[in-house]
């Protein structure tokens, strides 16, 4: 696990460095916009080696990921992404309600009736708070509200 994250950090540092090179780095006397990012990239790359080369003391195994729990996380995350992609088309009221229904029924295993009422209340509260009281502009979508 540590080695993998070390490699990821290394590539992050390398990518920052590569992008920063296209900016003007400048000199110490007059540091340009690329100066600080280059410094950061250098530090990241240096730090990544500490993770890639494991110290002999740390041989702790990270707890195994159970597929079942990961599945739940992925499903919820997928639902959040689905909300994002449908938000503009459906509008907040529908997209938000569908998301809440999904979370209550599929993840929390509530009865449809209870879930419908709770989802409706949550979405309405969020709507009143953000759209009316705080004068935000949530996407109206097909319902036009």
């Amino acid at each position, binding site marked *: 696990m540590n080695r993998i994250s070390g490699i990821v950090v290394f590539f992050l540092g390398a990518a920052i460095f590569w992008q920063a090179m296209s900016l003007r780095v400048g000199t110490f006397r007059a540091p340009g*916009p690329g100066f600080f990012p280059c410094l950061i990239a250098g530090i990241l790359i240096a730090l990544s080696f500490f993770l890639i080369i494991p110290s002999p003391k740390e041989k702790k195994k990270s707890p195994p990921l159970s597929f079942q729990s990961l599945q739940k996380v992925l499903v919820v995350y997928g639902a959040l992404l689905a909300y994002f992609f449908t938000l503009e088309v459906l509008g907040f009221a529908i997209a938000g309600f569908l998301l*809440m229904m999904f979370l209550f029924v599929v993840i929390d295993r509530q009865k449809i009736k209870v879930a419908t009422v709770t989802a409706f209340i*949550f979405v309405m509260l*969020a709507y009143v708070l953000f759209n009316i009281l*705080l004068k935000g*502009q949530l996407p109206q979508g097909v319902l036009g509200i």
Partner: protein
Amino acid sequence: MELLHHLQFGFSVALAPMNLLFCFAGVLIGTLVGVLPGLGPPATISLLMPISFGLPAETALIMLAGIYYGAQYGGSTTSILINIPGEASSVMTCLDGYQMARQGRAGPALGISAFGSFIGGTASIVGLMLLAPFLARFALKFGPPEYFGLMFLGMVVLTFLSKGSTIKSFISIVTGLFIGTIGIDLVDGVQRFTLGAPVLMDGIGLVPVGMGLFGIAEVLTNLEEKKVREVFKSEIKGLLPTRKDWAESVGPILRGSMIGFFLGILPGGGAILGAFTSYAVEKRLSRQPETFGKGAIQGVAGPETANNAATGGAMIPLLSLGIPSNVSMALLLGVMLIHGVRPNAFLIREHPQIFWGVICSMYVGNVLLIILNLPLIGVWVRLLKVRYGVLFPMILIFCLVGSYTINSNEYEVLIMLIFGAVGYVMRKAEFPQAPLVFALVLGPIMENALRQSLLHSRGKFSIFFTRPISLILIVAGIMILLIPLLSRVRGQRAKMMAEAPDE
């Protein structure tokens, strides 16, 4: 006399109906998140940031500060009743508080922690009031190298105190600094790392990052665990500590106030450090150290006082220097910047309504909290039983709506979701997230200080080492950096010595 005048002004701000209402909302929400599972002060402050944008700066800060110190009260309730610290800073309270509850003394434990919190909180506000203007006058001498040194030291201490691997929290910090560079460079007007996306031109906002890392990631992690919270099933009676309880607690409360306050001021310090130190001190001073961990009231009174006293201390560097000492303070700094308030040594003079208003609101807030927490303890106990299955959709919808409304831009939602995934992976790989957010707020200020220093010195890094204040700050930072290295070397030497055959 001048102080009285300032206080009068401060209270006139804090007691204005609107500010009083938001102060109440802040401490109420603070207590709530302290009690409820899976939401800490940084997450809550991130969640409420969009709301605060519509408010005047001082009202916003009064509310968000209320969440910060209110959570310390709520956190102790869960520690005592269910042995789960509501906040990291209440870990020490679990040790003796839960034992007291098991011995049927939940009431006095809750009582002394509320009173201790009140005394510690109030004492630290007095300290804040006296020390901050002094520090701000001192800070007028600060130039870019000193600010750079201060931020460097703050980040080092934060790394050092984060639990887990120091290397990983360092990576977290540096990544935060990088994210802070995304957007248009303020000095040259050049786009950096925007990949041509318009949403990235203004940089990556604090709100989507905070909500993603603390809100979404927290929910995703909690979904995995099947934790059943067992609430202590005994009636809570007699919240008022007895005379004997008081006699035993007076010392720890007084010492806890001092310890918490001064450790709270330290960059990277804060409530956790104060609570730990207070517990250790009380145990050492006690005539019966063996009672600690078995329900000693001193073990509750000291740390609970200290973690509240730390909240006042933590506000000092923020309000007098514009440098946060922990991640919650960094978020407050972010809010001030968004409101166009540049917190620095001039804050007290230029925005007295913020400085004195927030301080006085903390007095008011502490009074509100003791009212909320003592007579209403039953309500909070019932809230302990709220199921996570109901709570997490609420957190999610709040994040989704909140991140959208900042700029009415759906891509802010996407950024938040991406940081949610990043935060989840970070948790799995055991990288702390708080340093990232801390560095994200400070990054642009730090870069600016670095560039200005170098411009000023014509490219000589010696500028950081020839000015006494920045020299002290940077040397202190480097020394702290070297401690783990040295101890590693020493540890290995000790190991080699142990393995070496006897001579």
